[in-house]
């Protein structure tokens, strides 16, 4: 047993779960409160068509959202009022980005890409629950894939055809 085999095994263990066809989050667990880097992974387009727009809805309790610039894509930040006021390191925050739209790009069905944003998970979010980021993937001719299904109580994302990417919230150590 050498160090390199150990490394290979570790890579095997951690490296699985990348080849998803759904839009999913790269890191699926985060403590609250914390700053979280969300990497949305788009495995394919809409029934064979390329993706030309990606829209991510920011759930309540997630503030200070900053998308990472992406060459070839225009970013639009849709701002609005939150349902309640959240505490951001002592600053009461009642409005901010509620939707991020990446458009103008072209991601063919047989290519892979990632869409990144950074956000603050406020302490109002409950550890032990799952936070969902509904995503709409738009393609030419009005085609769309909507990863917007939020599991009802007692069901899991596996019970749905188009589950929204989920983030498991855990208590801060």
């Amino acid at each position, binding site marked *: 047993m050498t160090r390199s085999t*150990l490394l290979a095994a570790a890579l095997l263990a951690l490296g699985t779960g990348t080849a998803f066809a759904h839009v999913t989050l790269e890191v699926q667990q985060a403590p609250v409160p914390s700053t979280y880097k969300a990497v949305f992974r788009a495995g394919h387009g809409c029934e064979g068509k390329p993706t030309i727009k990606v829209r991510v809805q920011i759930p309540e309790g997630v503030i200070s959202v900053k998308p990472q610039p992406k060459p070839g894509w225009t970013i639009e930040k849709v701002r609005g009022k939150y349902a309640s006021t959240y505490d951001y390191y002592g600053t009461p925050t009642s409005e901010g980005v509620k939707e991020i739209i990446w458009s103008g790009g072209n991601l063919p069905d047989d290519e892979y890409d990632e869409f990144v944003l950074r956000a603050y998970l406020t302490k109002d979010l409950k550890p032990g629950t799952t936070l969902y980021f509904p995503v709409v993937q738009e393609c030419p001719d009005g085609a769309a894939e*909507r990863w917007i*299904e939020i599991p009802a109580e007692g069901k899991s994302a596996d019970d749905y055809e188009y589950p929204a990417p989920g983030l498991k919230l855990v208590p801060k150590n």
Partner: protein
Amino acid sequence: MTDLLPMLRRLFPALVLLLLVAAGLTAASTPVRAHASLTGAVPADGSMVPSPPTAFALTFSEPTSPLLLRLITPDGKSLPLDRFTLRDRTLDIVAPDALGSGTYVLSWRVVSEDGHPVGGSVVFSIGAASGAAPLVADAAEPGLQAAIWTNRLLLYGGLFVGIGGAFFLAWLGAPTRDGATVISVALAIGTGAALLSIGLQGLDALGAPLGALGQPIVWQTGFATSLGKSVLASLLAIALAGASLALPALPARVLTVLALIGLGSALAASGHAGTAPPQWLTRPSVFLHAVGIALWGGALAPLGLQIARRSPNAAATLRRFSRFIPFAVLPLVASGLLLAMIQLENLRALWSSAYGQVLSAKLVLVALLFALAAYNRLRLTEPARQGEARATRRLLGSIRLEIVLVLVIFGLAALWRFTPPPRALALAAAQPAPIHIHALKAMADITVTPGRVGAVNVDMMLMTGEFGPLDAKEVTLVLANPARGIEPIRRKAERRDGLWRIDGLVMPAPGEWTVRLDILITDFEMTRLEGALPIRP
């Protein structure tokens, strides 16, 4: 004990490796979320092909392997499709030999590389969409059927003998009062039968057993049908006829004419015949038919009694009756023929349908009745009027026989309650299957027309859970029949005239289908409604 520690130390890397692999497997198996979706099918979903295909093809968004492939044939059989080859993302399937025409369902269940099984169905027709088997009318419980039939017979007898009799007494029999008792009894029977018919109608409409007759809902339901108006008109006519019995000649004549009009309207207002299109023709026909029956059928008892009791007035009454009766019989026959033609739609139905068989039997009896009437009129009336005893006896016998025949004919006509005419059967086949699904966020009225196997149209009206307007972006109907092994059939609805519609869907099999409605409310919000849809064969 001393050897253990070094041994563990030696094994440590292997233990770590095992743990990591286990973790890796867990990680690989938990987020199994990606599914393949069908991107194309040959034959295409919802398509019609002129001749049986020799192969099917399903193309998915990613490579898959099939778990279960089945072809559901038009007669409901499920054929396993086990000859297939995988070619990249396409699944080529060898079609079974000798597929006949009709609607087929290619039900597929596959697993994509992530391990999540997904299913769906492709519906296609060869030559023509499956039609439907012949329809049978809903059968009520036998006890209820017998009660309804007896009630009908008593209602007809009471109404025709009572009201027709009252008319006869006022116009033709006067001043003799023979038959007044029979007429009163008939009117009383008619009243009871008319009232009871509401309850029986309610039971039939609700599909409830006879024992439920005491429940108010049954009577409310019965009264709410078209029979309610009929019963009201019948009761009014009975009251008028009853009053005429106690009144002097002139007002009695006026009342009996009104009573006849009431009777004709009562029968024209409900039933298969009065409600058949074109109503401008069928309603007056039923009216004339009913009035004619009352005039003829109602006259027999008081006329016979006058003759039997050797009333001094009998000769004059008999003459008036024979002069008058053609005016009742001619419209009776003409309207009867017209109604039969409308209801039968074609001559073959005279013996091929239950309705036609009852009509045939009735026509035979009516012919017999006419033969008797003609014999009375041509051979017996004149000698009887002259007072010839043998002719009078024969005339009496013949009138008795006529009364029996008339009652049997009423009994036959009462059978029609259970034998919808071919026209009504065709209409019943076209009846839609409506369902209503109500959930917290949304509700839907879904109508599948006709609600049976074959080509159907679907209309959906959406509302919010609080009955407000629901402005949906997209609506998808998902139908499945797990009992028949039919995986979900998906159809996107189109918005037209405020409704969401799907045209040209073919329901491949009867039975209980599960219905799911995916309603996209905003870009990010979807709500689902689930229910069950019964499809008739």
